[in-house]
């Protein structure tokens, strides 16, 4: 493990999530820094998505503390109701399977994400119904922010489409844009590159770098596409069977023997019992004979 320098944004301490006898996440601790892309990788079933579900209030962890540092905070995520995690702590997330509001327009999907701001501006609907100028102004700003993100994810010309009719790659980008419209300090992306072609995942990497550099927020990224992970992350956490097995810079993790073992398995001849090893030359000979 190597320490990655930075200002802590999210501190995960001793996170454990049990489902009956199954321990999906087992005593995981790490710190994600501000303005960094922290990738969480690991084989299938390593507990990555479970961890996201703990972070966003889907599950309440069996053990552990999740602290988000921001102005007005720190916020203990495991104690907040799901909607307050977005509203107060500023954590946004996307899903492995896309969950857009399919029957709303693309633009509306992005405006819904700004619900709390608009609800306040509309004095809980009264001003909105009367069309008061203060609400109009807030709504205009909301649409502006939505348009800004549409532009960033290259969906401007689809603004009035029904979201469910967009092509797959566009839906993925829209999901990220929608998460960004909640104006989060931490963006959690669950396999954003899944199902994207190489060009699209290249665009995705660019978008994530833009989010880190220009929006100056932290990104937590679950991803299997190592070309994306290794090229853009500042910090990589590796999980296997619910445990953290490695944590550090991409360069460190790439060469960490424990990671290689988890991904590729043990080197075989270390494991072979002596009697089998004895037989090996003989077997080789026999195979060569004919």
């Amino acid at each position, binding site marked *: 493990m190597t320490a990655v320098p930075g200002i802590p944004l999210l501190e995960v301490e001793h996170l454990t999530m049990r489902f009956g006898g199954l321990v999906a996440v087992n005593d995981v601790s790490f710190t994600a820094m501000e303005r960094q892309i922290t990738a969480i990788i690991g084989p299938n079933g390593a507990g990555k998505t479970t961890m996201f579900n703990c972070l*966003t*209030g*889907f599950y309440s962890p069996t053990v552990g503390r999740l602290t988000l540092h921001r102005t007005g905070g720190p916020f203990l995520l495991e104690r907040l109701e*799901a*909607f*307050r*995690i*977005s*509203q107060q702590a500023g954590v*946004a*997330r996307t*899903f492995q399977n896309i*969950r857009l*509001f*399919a*029957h*709303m327009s693309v633009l*509306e999907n992005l*405006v*819904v*994400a700004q*619900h*709390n701001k*608009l*609800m306040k*501006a*509309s004095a*809980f*609907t009264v001003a*909105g*119904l009367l069309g008061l100028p203060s609400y109009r102004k807030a*709504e205009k700003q909301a649409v502006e922010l939505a348009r800004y993100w549409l532009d960033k994810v290259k969906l401007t010309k689809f603004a009035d489409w029904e979201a469910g009719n967009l092509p797959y790659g566009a839906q993925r980008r829209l999901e990220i844009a*929608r998460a960004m419209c*909640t104006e989060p300090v931490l963006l959690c992306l669950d396999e954003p590159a899944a199902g994207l072609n190489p060009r699209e995942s290249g665009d995705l990497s660019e978008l994530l770098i833009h989010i880190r550099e220009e929006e100056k927020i932290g990104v937590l990224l679950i991803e299997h596409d190592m070309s994306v992970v290794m090229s853009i992350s500042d910090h990589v956490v590796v999980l296997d069977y619910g445990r953290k097995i490695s944590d550090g810079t991409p360069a460190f993790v790439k060469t960490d023997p424990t990671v290689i073992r988890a991904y590729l398995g043990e080197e075989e001849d270390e494991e072979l019992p002596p009697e089998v090893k004895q037989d090996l030359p003989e077997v080789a000979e026999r195979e060569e004979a004919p």
Partner: protein
Amino acid sequence: MEYFVQQLINGLTLGAIYGLIAIGYTMVYGIIGMINFAHGEIYMIGAFIAVISFIVLGAAGITWVPVMLMLVLIISMVFTSIYGWTIERLAYRPLRGSFRLAPLISAIGMSIFLQNYVQLVQGARVKPMPPVIQGGFVIMERADGFVVSLSYLQILIIVLTTVLMVGFTGLITRTELGRAQRACEQDKTMAGLLGVNVDRTISLTFVLGAALAAVAGVMVTMYYGVIDFFIGFLAGVKAFTAAVLGGIGSLPGAMLGGLLIGLIEAFWSAYFSIEYKDVATFAILVLVLIFRPTGLLGKPEIEKV
């Protein structure tokens, strides 16, 4: 011809009232997928509060009709909203996340409870209500003396309903609350993750539905002049039919369905038999469910596997 016009006017008036109640059914179904069987009772309570507040206002000396009407509307909307909110909070919210039938049964229980509660505190007898708005226009007159009239009250009912429906459509399509409601309708979890307070949005849906039902209650009280504790049942079932006919979950569907049910009832009682008007209404429901299960304006539900 004159007879037809008269029935058209009566049918539209009735349809407007059904439409107002049907919106409550359709909205609640849209957002949490349950039929709020207590909604008819909310309408009945709205009617009772109307009678009570007419009497109280009369006793207080406020008798100028526009002011009186305004106040009665506001009072019953406020009170029924509180009822709607409370019912959701007590009878439905604790059961959310339980199996699908649980809130439905709870709703039926709530409906029976509210009926009996009103019967106990208000008595089982019908409550008469002296006409508040009288008079109207004579539109046509037949040679044999049959008069087609459009009363001021009917105009009021139709105009008020239209205004409310336009306002309500605006609320759903344009305001942030409406947007949040539509978002919750599609994916509550995701809406929550985007910071929408899902519970509050659902509560407000009940409150809005109840307020509209209260308006229907006030109108019916003035239109028929008698109410009792049981009016909620039939009106509720009719409005529910209207919502299903129009396509449950669809707002314009509820309005259209309400209008159609009102017209069917009026014309059936006029040309066939008044005893069988309810049979006619429900026969239409059966036919719609057989040939177009999603209703006239409803979207078919496609479930992804």
